[in-house]
Every structure is written in C-alpha cells, then in structure tokens.
C-alpha cells in the first residue's frame, strides 16, 4: 500500500480544496437554494474526508444525519420562507468588506498559531470501530449520552411548538 500513498495524499489535498471551494460558493452564492445544494456537497466532502481519516462510522453518521436530515430541514425552511426567490434582493449586507478583512486577519493569526505550536504526535495513528464507539457511548459517556437524548427531545418538542401555526 506504500506505493499507493502519494496518490492517496494527492487525493486528500484535492478533496480539501474541493470542500473549501464548495464552502466558499455556499457562503457567497446569491441564490440561497443553490447555497443549500453546495452545502450538501460540502457535507458530503467532509464525509469522504472522514473516510480518509479512518472514521468510517462518523462518516456514515455524517451522511445519514447531515445530508439526510439537516439538509432536508434547511431545504424545507428555504422553500417555506422564500418568495420563489426574487434575485434582485441583495443576499448579503453592507459589511462584506470589513468582514472579509477581519476574518482574514483572524485567519492569519490562527495559521501563525498553528504553525508555531509544537504538536505532540503519537507514534501510531489511532483507529476505532463502531463496537468500541458503542461501548464508549453506553459506558464512559452514558450520562452525556442520556442528557443529549433529552436535549434532542426537548429541542424537537420546542421546534414543533414554535413552528406550528396557532390554530
């Protein structure tokens, strides 16, 4: 597999570029529906990235939950709120330039910090599988797991109550 490694590395960088590109389109494109489509591509790209990082289960969850569920919600929200998309309405506010400058400065700081920090890298790359993950969820993290279930339930009920019409 060593012979194959450069190819995989190349593919990984390509994938990263692709994700960034779709993400940039997502935040800049005028048509919000197109933004949602590109978000779906971004999320799928992230899922593939997880496959590269040997997090298979997370990748599947990413597709199932983000692409399958959250995207559906977003698209529905767009459909229910947009007035069949009038393209003459500006989709971004007047702080594009300041925002670009400020996020750029933040990015410079972050990248400098990342490059300066001496990262401690352990010798072997860690992997895990769904069984170990399940044991961790039901063992070490059982309380957060239960709490998060409760949060989800509360959020669902809250969403239903908030969104339904008063009649």
């Amino acid at each position, binding site marked *: 597999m060593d012979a*194959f490694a450069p190819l995989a590395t190349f593919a990984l960088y390509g994938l990263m570029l692709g994700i960034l590109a779709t993400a940039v389109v997502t935040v800049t494109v005028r048509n919000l*529906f*197109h933004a949602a489509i590109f978000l779906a591509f971004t999320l799928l790209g992230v899922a593939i990235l997880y496959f590269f990082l040997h997090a*298979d289960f997370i990748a599947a969850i990413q597709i199932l939950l983000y692409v399958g569920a959250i995207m559906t919600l977003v*698209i529905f929200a767009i459909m229910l709120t947009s007035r069949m998309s009038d393209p003459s309405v500006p989709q971004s506010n007047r702080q594009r330039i300041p925002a670009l400058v400020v996020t750029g400065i933040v990015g410079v700081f972050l990248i400098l910090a990342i490059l300066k920090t001496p990262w401690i890298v352990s010798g072997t790359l860690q992997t895990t599988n769904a*069984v170990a993950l399940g044991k961790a969820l039901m063992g070490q993290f059982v309380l957060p797991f239960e709490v998060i279930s409760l949060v989800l339930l509360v959020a669902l009920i809250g969403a239903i109550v908030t969104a339904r019409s008063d009649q």
Partner: protein
Amino acid sequence: MQQIDQIFVNAKHAILDLASGFLPEWVVIVISILVSVTAIAIFGPVTMMYLTLLERKAIGRIQNRYGPNRVGKWGLLQPIADGIKMLTKEDIVPQSADKFAHFLAPVVIVIPALLIFAVIPFGRGMTAVDLSIGLLFFLALSSTTTIWIFVAAWGSRNKFSLLGGMRSVAQMISYEIPMVLSVVPVLLVVGSFSTVSIVDAQAGGNWFIFTPWGIVGFLLFFLTGVAEVNRTPFDLPEGESEIVAGFHTEYSGMKFALFYMAEFMSAFTISAIVATAYLGGWQGPWLPSWLWLMIKAYFLILVMMWFRGTFPRFRVDQLMGFAWKFLLPLALLNIFAAGVWIELDAPINYLVAGAIVAVSIVILYWANKPDMPKKRTYRYAYE
C-alpha cells in the same frame, strides 16, 4: 464447481497478474480498483435496462397481455431500443426553471445508487469493498436520494413537481426510521455492520428469516425498502393519476432516463441488501454463490412487480399512519424480541421471541383498527 463459483474472482486475479508483470505497483492497485468499478458500472445500468423489460413483461402477464415482444426475440432488444430513443430525444428545460438545479439533480441522483453496489456481497469473495460499516453505508447513501429528488422538484418550477417532491421527502423521512430500526436486530446478532460478516453469520442454512424476529425484520425491511424506492403501493411522489408524474414531470430524454435508472438500480440494491441481511446473501447449496444472490434478489424484485400489478396506491394519511403507528413500534418491539432471542437458550428463545412478536403484531393491528379503511359507503350528490 469451485471454478464456476469463483469465476469472476479468478478473472480479476488473472487481469491483475497480467498487469503486475510489467507495470509499477501503484498502477496495479489503480487497475484493481478500476476493474471493480468498471464491473459495477457496467452491471448496474445493464441490470436496470433488463429490469425495465422484466417489469413490462411481468406487469403484462399480470394484466393478461404479452408485454414487449417485437424488438428481438421475446423483446430482448427492447431496452436497447428504448435507450436509443431516450438518447436522441429532445432535452426540454422549462423556461422559468432553475437551470442549475434542473440539470444537477438527475446527474447526482445516480451516484448513490451506483455507490451502494460497492458493499453488496455478490458472491463468495465478490464484494467490491468490505466496509466495516457496510449496512450503515447503504442506509446513509439511500437517504441522500431524498435531497436530489427535492432539488429536481424545486428546480422544475412546477406545482406538480413540487408536490411530488414534498411527498417524497415526507415519505422517505418517515420510512427511513423503521428501515434503520428494522436492521438493528441483524446488527445485534452479528455484532458488525459489515455485509460480508452478516452473510458469514448466516452460513449453513441459518438464514435470519427463519427466526421469529427475522421474519418480522425481513418484512419490515422489505416493505420500508419498497417505500424508499417509491414503488407501488408507496408511489405517491409520482402518482400519475394525481400529480402527473411528480418530481420528474418536467424531465424528458436522458435526464428522465437517469431518474428511471436510479429508481431501478435502487430497487435492485434494496432487494440485494434485503437478501443479504435476512435471506442468507449468497449462501445456498448446489448452485454458485453469485447465482444464489441473483435468484434471491430477483425473487424480491418480482414480488415488488407483483405488488405493482395488484395493489392500489395508499392515501397520504394511511401512508404516514402505517409508518409511524405500525411499522415504527413494531420495529422497536422486534429489537426487543431479538434481544430476548439472543439472551435465552436455544429452544425456548424461539418460543419467547415468537410470542413477543406475535403479541406485538396482534396488539398493533388491533390498536390501529380504528384507522383502517372501513367498508366504503358511497354517497351520491343530488344537489
């Protein structure tokens, strides 16, 4: 026997042996990947083409007709004729359509359908990728179809398309939950998502369908699968008598063919995965392993066609009620039954699990009774 069983595997090895003679190692790896990909990329569309023929034939026989029989012997060349027609047809894009979305949806929707072929164990040693999360991969990918159907519907700028798309989303989201839950018993018993190990766990005739939870799980999985690919009696998103053709009303030519292809390939993959999860996959005596999987998958496809030939369409409220009030609780109780089945000893567990699922079905049937369609009474309008 061994030869026939492993014929495809051996063919791949032969190609690789040939290649490794004079090519660098990484090229061989690429070729190895390409061989699998090519095999699937050919197998998927060809399957789809002949499924259309098979469906038309089967429905024809059910309706006391012959079905296509003019092009070639028994109409065998009909799919090719259809393909040529589709390719040469004019590709119409409505003027007010969102052209980007309209173009994108049919192209992308085929991808998950094709990708799922990667985890199907076609025979002994004939799995393209033995992912450790095989079954979850299937579930995740088949759920992405929803978005592209909706994108197609939205992009068409057509009321009927949008209605069909919304119906499709509502239906798929609802049926996905019992679908995911219906395979949980298999995962409980096998202890792995991998499709290969699921098939291995059913070796020696111990197909999961022969257990009490297995038969319920099989029915749940198959029914929700039929709903996921929008086939009769769950074909509300494209119900032609109500909303023209649903989300693909505004599509013609090759784009329409791509939707068709995605649907038929999904139908095949669903059948193959159901066969893998509950009918023992390629396990079976006498015949080669790949033939066994084909027999099982095609049997399930024929059942789907039989459904289409006989069942009327659901009403929307019935469709939702069936998913949330019957399939979902039954799937949960079935997981419980499977848990009991695992915990108890051999002869008793069949009885106890059987009792649990039988009682659950009876109670659910009976709790849903008020919502079931009663004998219709006709009222005539006089005024």
